[in-house]
């Protein structure tokens, strides 16, 4: 009798056992979901926020071509077709050497500036096995003006045409909708227009994006000039825009009180005042090419 009871017990147990464990939980115990390092991607959808850049770099073998336009002020009325008759343009290329370093060159008709920079991703925001709250990118660049000197008699050296820029982007993607960045920047101009102007100007930029739908994103950017003569005589740059993403293109249309598209131009040399209606329409078209 005892023998049969034991046997029955074993059979019952094995049946229960095979039923109790469904395959998915068995899979979880055999091959569990690994706690890997998850790097946050797409903090910003392009290398440009509006006038300034973002913490994003071109990824490996990716070429990003951007064309930017800034039109005149809308308060000039219908005679200038709300500023559209005047336009400032910059086109540029940015190429990813690897996923952390990219190189860029550009040309703008604002003071006939040639500009170039290197962007290095120093840290990436990550979760999972390794937690780090920010993506940090360093930008080191210079711009050279090719404009003819207005005073012929004075022989300025070539170095007078050069401006330097050092900028750090500290960005955080809070969720799929919201990303913000803080960008302290130092601009050094070897020559300035008047004696009162500062050669070295510091500023702090704040910017962000908020995704409205899968296609439309609202973007905004503000650069605060650190106190000094430049801050007294010029205005802080403020811009609002809408970003439209379609696979290989990012199209940005915005309003801003700045007409320049390089840091040297829009951070210490913004004359426009939002309250006076010195607002210009502008757009950036950013196209991605991949060479894999």
């Amino acid at each position, binding site marked *: 009798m005892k023998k049969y009871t*034991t046997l029955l017990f074993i059979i019952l147990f094995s049946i229960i056992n095979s039923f109790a464990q469904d*395959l998915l939980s068995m*899979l979880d115990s055999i091959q569990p979901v690994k706690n890997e390092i998850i790097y946050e991607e797409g903090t910003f959808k392009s290398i440009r926020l509006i006038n300034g850049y973002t913490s994003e770099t071109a990824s490996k073998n990716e070429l990003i071509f951007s064309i930017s336009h800034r039109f005149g002020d809308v308060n000039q009325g219908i005679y200038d077709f709300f500023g559209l008759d005047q336009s400032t343009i910059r086109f540029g290329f940015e190429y990813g050497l690897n996923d952390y370093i990219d190189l860029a060159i550009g040309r703008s008709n604002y003071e006939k500036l040639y500009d170039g920079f290197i962007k290095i991703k120093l840290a990436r925001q990550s979760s999972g096995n390794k937690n780090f709250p920010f993506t940090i990118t360093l930008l080191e660049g210079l711009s050279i003006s090719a404009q003819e000197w207005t005073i012929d008699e004075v022989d300025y050296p070539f170095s007078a045409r050069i401006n330097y820029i050092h900028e750090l982007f500290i960005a955080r993607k809070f969720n*799929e909708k919201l990303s913000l960045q803080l960008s302290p920047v130092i601009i050094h101009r070897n020559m300035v227009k008047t004696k009162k102007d500062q050669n070295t100007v510091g500023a702090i930029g704040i910017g962000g994006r908020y995704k409205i739908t899968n296609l439309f994103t609202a973007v905004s950017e503000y650069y605060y000039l650190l106190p000094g003569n430049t801050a007294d005589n010029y205005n802080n740059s403020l811009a609002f825009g809408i970003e439209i993403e379609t696979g290989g293109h990012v199209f940005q249309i915005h309003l801003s009180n700045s007409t320049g598209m390089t840091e040297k131009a829009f951070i210490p040399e913004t004359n426009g005042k939002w309250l006076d209606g010195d607002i210009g329409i502008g757009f950036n078209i950013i196209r991605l090419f991949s060479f894999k």
Partner: protein
Amino acid sequence: MKTILLVLITVFQISTSLAQDIYVVSKANVNFTSDAPLEMIEAESNKLTGILKISDRSFVFRVPIKSFEGFNSSLQRTHFNENYMESTKFPHTVFEGKIIEEIDFSTPGTYNIRAKGSFTSHGIKQERIIKCKLIIAPNKITVSSKFTVLLEDHNIKIPTVVSQKIAEEILINIELELVPK
């Protein structure tokens, strides 16, 4: 004494039969292709996991969506994860079910089978029958399959602006190698 011996033997038999019963994925490659008029998008993952229980021919396979790499740009990969697959909300695609044909796993050879079960992607479950080729060798089962998934079936919406760049039907190609646990 005799009883204890019997118990031991039975338990041992059950445990050994269980061990041979379960096959786990040791090597995997999943790739998908979206062949649209204006753009061809391809991506692949090697992170598929899964098990096959040969006693009742049941299986489960799972692939993490964030593990897909390839694409034509990093922006496209971000769009894939954020806008279309919503991979933070729905991290895996799972196929769970049974093999219809009663095949003999102890005889090596090539078998064309149909796998029937629930295919869950983007949080939407669909009953599917997927044709597969099994190559059974001693201590190894190779699975290969090609099938398609309709975006509409899984409530993945494509904006009109990019409709010429993303195919409505995605081709999926799977190669797996399973070994006894």
